[in-house]
């Protein structure tokens, strides 16, 4: 390998590289703590030692660090041991990473907001596939946030609505710019209908009818 083909860092003397690496680490560590000064004040030293490297990794990977910090604070408030907090935060970061990577592969030109990654991770946890999430993103006519729509999608799938059916409905709502206030009420109305003992698809149809939202699957009345 010729000298000129070496990466910039490799061409620098070892001491310079060590100094630069240390500085980068310091910047990341400072960023993790400085963005929320009360964070370090509320988290005990043992927990901080466990989660700090995880948060630095998350920051480096452009994951929703605020959501991870919030999970740490939740664990501290609930008096959870440091090791368990670390495990949960690590798993959550992995979920964010997987969803972010998957959506980036499917939607390379789309910028994902932190709230959208969090919502997508929760929906994924409820059984929504990345391709279904992509369908919702592709139906977005503008840059409006999809966190509410994706959350509702996850809630419908969790309640037993087939993913394809739920995706079709939510994509339609997004495409037609149905107010989020209506979309947010779908799970509640669904529960009301499902309580009467109907199938999930029928409950979804009823929820849409009650909210006066056109049903894109209207060709299959009652499912």
């Amino acid at each position, binding site marked *: 390998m010729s000298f000129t083909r070496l990466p910039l860092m490799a061409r620098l003397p070892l001491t310079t590289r060590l100094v630069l690496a240390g500085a980068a680490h310091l910047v990341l560590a400072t960023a993790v703590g400085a963005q929320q000064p009360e964070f370090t004040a509320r988290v005990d030293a043992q927990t901080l030692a466990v989660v700090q490297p995880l948060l630095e990794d998350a920051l480096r990977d452009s994951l929703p660090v605020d959501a991870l910090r919030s999970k740490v604070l939740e664990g501290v408030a609930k008096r959870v041991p440091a090791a368990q907090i670390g495990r949960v935060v690590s798993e959550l970061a992995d979920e964010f990473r997987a969803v972010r990577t998957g959506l980036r592969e499917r939607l390379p030109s789309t910028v994902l907001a932190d709230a959208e990654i969090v919502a997508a991770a929760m929906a994924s946890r409820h059984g929504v596939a990345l391709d279904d999430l992509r369908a919702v993103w592709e139906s977005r006519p503008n840059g409006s946030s999809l966190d509410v729509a994706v959350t509702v999608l996850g809630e419908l799938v969790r309640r037993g609505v087939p993913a394809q059916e739920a995706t079709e409905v939510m994509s339609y709502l997004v495409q037609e710019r149905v*107010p989020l206030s209506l979309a947010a009420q779908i799970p509640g109305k669904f529960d009301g209908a499902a309580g009467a003992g109907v199938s999930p698809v029928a409950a979804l149809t009823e929820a849409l009818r009650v909210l006066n939202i056109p049903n894109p699957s209207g060709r299959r009345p009652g499912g």
Partner: protein
Amino acid sequence: MNDDRHFDSYLNGEITQDELPEAVRREERELRKLMGALHADIEASHVLRDNVMREIESVGAPFWRRVVDWCIRPRTIRLSPAAGGLAFAAAAAIAILVVGVLPMSDTGGVEVAADRVVTRFVFIAPEASAVQVTGDFIDWSPDGLALENERGTGVWTIDVPLEPGVYQYAFVVDGAEWRPDPRAVSHVDDGFGRENSVVIVSRERAS
């Protein structure tokens, strides 16, 4: 023939320039030079040209168009420092008045930023002596937000202004017991062996 008559004959084409007396011919050359200068293009400034064109366009234009033209046309305003100071003070007073008078949101007297939606949390616990709500919207503050026991009925409520989004939360009963909201639209595993409740806050909240 005097000079004037020679000149008239020349202008009428009865005689040529060469037939003019020398004095008249010299005068004619001066006049021609002067006329040439008058015929040369005059380069008007673009400001003058724009203003003239705007005036021409405004003639016969509808009233609203003339008002708009008047409003958008750049003008030079001369202002003394005293008058300028007074104008600035008046503008600042109006701004303060408007901000103070206009409610950011109708929340029963509580000021709420326009981008926030008042969200009511309700928890029924007749046996409880204190109930707090905490969640990711307040970074899981251990103190939480205290709910009010409405007339001692055991129905604990609080209105919290939240930005649109999806939030996780839980109630803390008597400072120790973590409880999910049974009325919540959804619950998620918190990873710590308990459940968090989920609330979806949308800007055009209708429920």
